[in-house]
């Protein structure tokens, strides 16, 4: 019951603020709404007992990436941009893409004749103390099975850092 309440609470916040993020004219408001959507997603991670990702989502996404976004929004001149039309004349393309995606999902339901996941086992809520410690299992998986992808990801971050510095620095 509590699971259900938490899920619908966070899902409503996530979807609502995502819609507002796409439709607001002001980019700063959009960034704030994206932050609330990401925080609501973090809540859903917690509801799924993924505590480590919950913390990573808050610290890295909201604390790192979104601060970067807000910073860049401050750097580029917003007053000029606000006077201009914010929406491209591509409403029909958007409608088409959304309908195509929804149609694919609908076709999937129609052809399988059941809801997704129906028949799959549903985990009953077990006591928190009986679950394995989340950060520990993630660390074991990350540093044993996925060590090479982890190192590649760190190289990718290094490349991105150098690239961002080179892109953003003044030409002399």
């Amino acid at each position, binding site marked *: 019951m509590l*699971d259900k309440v938490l899920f619908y609470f966070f*899902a409503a916040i*996530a*979807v609502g603020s*995502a819609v507002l993020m*796409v439709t607001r004219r002001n*980019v700063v408001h*959009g960034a704030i709404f*994206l932050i609330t*959507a990401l925080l609501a*997603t973090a809540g*859903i*991670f917690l509801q*799924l*007992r*993924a505590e*480590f*990702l919950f913390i*990573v989502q808050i610290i*890295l*996404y909201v604390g790192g*990436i979104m601060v*970067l*976004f807000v910073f*860049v929004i401050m*750097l*580029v*001149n917003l007053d*000029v*941009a606000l006077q*201009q*039309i914010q*929406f*491209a004349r591509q409403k029909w393309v*958007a409608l088409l*893409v*959304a309908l195509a*995606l*929804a149609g694919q999902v609908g076709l999937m339901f129609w052809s399988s004749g059941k*809801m*997704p996941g*129906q028949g*799959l*086992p*549903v*985990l009953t809520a077990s006591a928190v103390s009986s679950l394995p410690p989340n950060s520990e*299992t*993630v660390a074991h*998986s*990350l540093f044993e099975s*996925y060590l090479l992808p982890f190192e590649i990801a760190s190289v*990718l*971050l290094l490349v*991105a*850092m150098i*690239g*961002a510095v*080179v*892109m*953003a620095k003044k030409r002399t």
Partner: protein
Amino acid sequence: MLPIGHYLFLSLALFIIGVIGVVTRRNVIVVLMSIELILNAVNINLVAFSRLYGDVAGQVFALFIIADAAAEAAVALGIIIAFFRNRETVLEDEMDLLKW
């Protein structure tokens, strides 16, 4: 946890909203934020299935996606700053230097 369909529908809704944002908005920063939303929707799927099967690999993949999103945001925002310095615009349909 709830049946997996709930999470799949939430993820689908966020994904479609993100796609609509990418297609309809002119401001490049908002387009980038919509892409972050799409990546986030994928993460919900991965974590939900990781919980369903009791296998932590899905959460590790979600971590990689978050690292990817950080790298992408850093490079893209660097490009936006460089472009804004040259052309004084952040609207994507005015970025037509390669068009003839």
